[in-house]
């Protein structure tokens, strides 16, 4: 399945990811200055934000993969969408956990029904359901079809949920990040972290996808032998 060039590309990606991750750790923990008011705990922000970005990217990929699967019916698109949903759920879980830790330090509470937290939680439920549909499907192609439907219907929901919940309430530190409130060194550190986590995401999805394709190949080969 994997030719020499693909292997080389993989190695390069692993190397790049490793280097970026080391740089990200250095930038987030040492290079970036300690925030005046929040203190050291603010550094979780360098992981929280990239995780959230990658989680969203993952669900976008699920959306695109689902459309392409229903259109072309090629197993590869389904495998990509599925792999991306798995990684997305893990990353979103981490977003919720790091967000909780930060909230405890910043606001003194673990959880608050703030707009973005709530929207993220709703999103998390949609993609947990996506993975459950796969588990409960009666056969593989049915699971692929059904979860693709959810991958599309669920992603379209994102802007509506975000809008509705935003109107409902908001207390997230938006301004801090986007209105120049961030020191330039902090911004550089954040960008390096985002890059590192994006490469990590690509690596994970590549591997999970090829694993799924190999699994289905093995099943097919087993079956050929049985005949």
């Amino acid at each position, binding site marked *: 399945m994997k030719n020499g060039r693909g292997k080389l590309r993989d190695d390069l990606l692993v190397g790049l990811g490793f280097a970026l991750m080391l740089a990200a750790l250095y930038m987030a923990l040492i290079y970036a200055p300690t925030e005046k008011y929040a203190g050291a705990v603010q550094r979780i922000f360098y992981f929280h934000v990239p995780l959230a970005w990658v989680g969203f990217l993952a669900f976008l990929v699920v959306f695109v993969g689902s459309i392409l699967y229903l259109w072309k019916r090629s197993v590869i698109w389904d495998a990509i969408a599925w792999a991306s949903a798995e990684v997305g759920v893990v990353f979103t879980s981490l977003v919720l956990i790091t967000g909780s830790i930060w909230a405890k330090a910043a606001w003194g509470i673990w959880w608050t029904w703030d707009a973005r937290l709530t929207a993220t939680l709703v999103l998390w439920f949609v993609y947990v359901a996506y993975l459950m549909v796969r588990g409960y499907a009666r*056969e*593989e*192609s049915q699971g692929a079809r059904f979860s693709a439907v959810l991958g599309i219907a669920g992603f379209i929901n994102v802007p509506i949920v975000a809008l509705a919940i935003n109107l409902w309430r908001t207390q997230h530190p938006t301004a801090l990040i986007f209105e120049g409130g961030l020191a330039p060194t902090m911004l550089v550190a954040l960008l390096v972290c985002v890059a590192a986590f994006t490469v990590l995401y690509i690596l994970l999805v590549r591997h999970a996808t090829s694993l799924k394709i190999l699994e*289905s190949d093995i*099943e*097919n080969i*087993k*079956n050929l032998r049985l*005949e």
Partner: protein
Amino acid sequence: MNETGAGSGAWAIEVEGLGKSFGSHRALTGICLKVGRGEHVTVFGPNGAGKTSLIKILSTLMKPSAGTVCLDGSDISKVPSEVRRKIGLVAHQTFLYDDLTVYENLKFYGKMYDVPNLEEQIHNVVRWVRLEARLHDRVGTLSRGMQQRISIARAVIHNPSIVLLDEPEVGLDPHAIVMVREVLDSLSAGERTVVMTTHNLEQGIEMSDRVVILYKGRIVYQEHKDRIDIATFRETYDRYTESAK
């Protein structure tokens, strides 16, 4: 085969290289079958041979994983609506609504098929399956055998040129089988093309022009009825499917 990939139209049913797999399980492999207009083909096979999958694909309920199926020259994957009009299907399940009367059920399906002179047609098919007396009874109150006869009436309400029967006698008591068989006999007497699956050898042969044995998703044997008798066919059937045991 012409260059568009559709069938020539000389056959009622034309199946080429048909395959169906469920994940890693292969239900059908390399099925090729041509059925002439008005012909009655019976497909025999043990449980799990792929009979139901074959019928489901022929009736457009299921998409094949490989190969093509043409009904009256049109590819079922390209013009399903047009094709669906030509098919009537009788399966083990009746597709009827228990809480509606026989009449309401037939009227519903008739409307879905845009049947002209629907009232008259309903009375025709009900008379044909000899259940006029039960026309306004709820389907749920009828016996299993009667329900199956209504199901046959439902399958032909739109006068399809091709009728597919998937083990129409499964789950019926002997008396009901006699009644259903009568209806099936008159069904194949007309100019309709019929494909039926069964594992009842005697009856299957009697009614058919041609027999096919399906085993482990492949066609392992086919022959015209004139060239076989029941004894040798039973032997043949056992020989081809023996390895199952």
